[in-house]
């Protein structure tokens, strides 16, 4: 009974992790840089949802797309203003690409946390739920209604994203730019526009993840730190830059953590992810489904 409970809850948290981590993986896949402000995309989504629903009195179902739009807009603006120097003609920046990306995204993360802290305030805000059902019984499993809806929306978004990447023209362009930016450009793909699109999708997914969880995690300005940390572990475990790897790794980590917390130690549950991170980097740096190397 407990095992079923843990499996289902782990799977659900895995879906939330996946929604966050996929965006990070996409950015890494295309630019080969880590976005340290990814957790703050999540925070902005959570706050947009809460403030639109509570302060403007809008239905939570309408606050959800508002949060998604805020995340997408933030992602696109960050790409245009801060990330474009990495690949669009600023030769001196591309020499120090890694250093630039670390400093600029880390700075952005601190800026966003402090802006929200000063403008909205330090108090945690519990967002309104999408449903009033606080307890839903599914066989042996007892779930919060919001959690169930959030899991369903997350699953639908992940499936939609997979189809978009696989089937749509834009999705194929993303794949092409991720495989070889120069080659894609030579084939007539607008790599700059594609990168913008990736940042917008990444921001949208992280913001939606924050919005869906806002009624469960009582967002405060530093709320993004925890899911961002998980996302880094997932991106490494799945294979740097692999979207499919990130999805599988997220589900796996969610389930492993749930069982580890009960049967080994709750105290060390978060350390489990970091241990996995170290082991993967040491013994299987390509991750679960990543490539060992790439030559073109």
């Amino acid at each position, binding site marked *: *009974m*407990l095992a079923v*409970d*843990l499996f289902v*809850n782990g799977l659900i*948290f895995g879906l939330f992790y996946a929604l966050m981590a996929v965006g990070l993986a996409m950015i890494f896949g295309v630019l080969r840089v880590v976005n340290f402000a990814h957790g703050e995309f999540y925070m902005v989504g959570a706050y947009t949802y809460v403030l639109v629903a509570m302060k403007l009195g809008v239905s939570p179902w309408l606050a959800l797309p508002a949060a998604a739009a805020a995340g997408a807009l933030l992602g696109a603006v960050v790409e245009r203003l801060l990330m474009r120097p990495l690949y669009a003609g600023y030769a001196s920046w591309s020499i120090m690409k890694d250093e630039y990306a670390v400093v600029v995204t880390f700075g952005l993360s601190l800026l966003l*946390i*402090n802006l929200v*802290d000063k403008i909205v305030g*330090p*108090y*945690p*805000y*519990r967002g309104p739920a999408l449903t009033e059902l*606080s*307890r839903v019984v599914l066989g042996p499993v*007892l*779930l*919060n209604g919001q*959690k169930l809806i959030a899991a369903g929306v997350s699953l639908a978004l992940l499936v939609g994203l997979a189809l978009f990447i696989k089937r749509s023209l834009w999705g194929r362009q993303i794949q092409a730019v991720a495989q070889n930016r120069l080659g894609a450009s030579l084939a007539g793909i607008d790599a700059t526009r594609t990168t913008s699109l990736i940042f917008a999708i990444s921001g949208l997914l992280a913001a939606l993840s924050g919005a869906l*969880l806002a009624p*469960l*995690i*009582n967002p*405060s*300005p*530093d*709320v993004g*730190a*925890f*899911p961002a940390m998980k996302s880094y572990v997932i991106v490494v475990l799945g294979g740097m830059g692999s979207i499919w790897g990130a999805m599988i790794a997220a589900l796996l980590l969610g389930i492993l*953590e*749930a069982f580890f*917390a*009960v049967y080994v130690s*709750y*105290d060390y*549950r*978060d350390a489990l992810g970091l241990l996995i991170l170290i082991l993967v980097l040491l013994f299987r740096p390509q991750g679960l489904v990543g490539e060992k190397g790439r030559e073109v």
Partner: protein
Amino acid sequence: MKRLTFLAAVTATLYLPALAQEPIAIGISIAQSPPGSVVQGTQVKDGLEIMKDMINAKGGVLGRPIKLIYEDDQGIPEKGRAAAEKLITSDKVVALTGGHQSSVCLAAIEVAHRYQVPYVNTNCWSDDVRKKGYAEVFNPSNYNTRVSQAMAETIAAMGVKRVVAFPENTDYGIGQAKLLAEFIKQKAPQVQYKYETLDRAGKDFTPAVLALRANPPDMVINVMLPPAAYILMNQLYEQGVAPSAKTWLYDGAGLADYPDFWQNVKEAGKGLISFGLYHPRMNIPPIGKELAAEYTKRTKGEPNRLIFQAADSLLLIAEAIKQAKSTDPKAITKALQNIKFSGVRGPFQFGKQPGYGFQQWVDIPYVNYQLTEVNQPVSKSNLIQGPGQPLDLKKLQKAK
């Protein structure tokens, strides 16, 4: 020569009154940004500001106004240490106060002790702050032994058999959970007690809660601060663990009087039993009533314990300066050691015994109450134990 003498006389005439009016600087180190408890930091600041205005409105201390210099320690010990160092060496404060998170207090008192500057602890509960035995550290706030003893007495009286506590992974949380184990052993040896430490930055405590669902204990105890405490309460409620017909939920962290409590817990707070250090039905002296009225005027809310504790911390320093007739930190420390103080929560003196009672208000009053409705203010809650009174368990209502 005459001209020089005249100039010196004019300068002295102009300068001396200004010097006499030079403010007395008091250093405040609180959490004003995450990951520290900003909720607590804001409440402490509110209490200090009101008391500062009250003192200054009556002419200040020794004819000089009080000036508060704030540092944001973010609830991080090393930042608290750096803040204390900066306040003492750069801002030349005559005393430090405001500390509200034990790990930070433990770091900051080392600096205060080194520079022999008085440190008035506003809300750090860890007994270790007292056990250090530093002559400069004074504790008009609550302490872990007091809470654990009171909670163990309640647990014994309620006749529960299995108790699980969830402390946060800090000096305060773990310290209190361990003390609770000791007191339960003494006062209710038949009770099976265990605790599970949770990460104060955590967002998902479901696995720890699920482990209780199959065989719920008779009581779950919260020893966490917001926002993690709110998340834990919501998850306990969602899983039907506590408060429930089988399991009581008992809060040892004083959550229920935070201004954001109900917004964050809603149904999960109904039925909560809470250990409290302030209740509107407590006997409060006129100066305390004046403080409460001013707080309500400024914020439209009910004051909580932190408002009173912060106000008392500043008033203590002001009284000590008055008694010492000096702003020399050593003289203030000496005055505090012997002070007979009457503050916003009533009169008290500091204990002299080494250990948890060192320079501590040992008999600090407390209450136990139960929240019986969603959005219920503390003033309307079900008071099951007034200060110094026996428990009235007949008043307790089990959740349905």
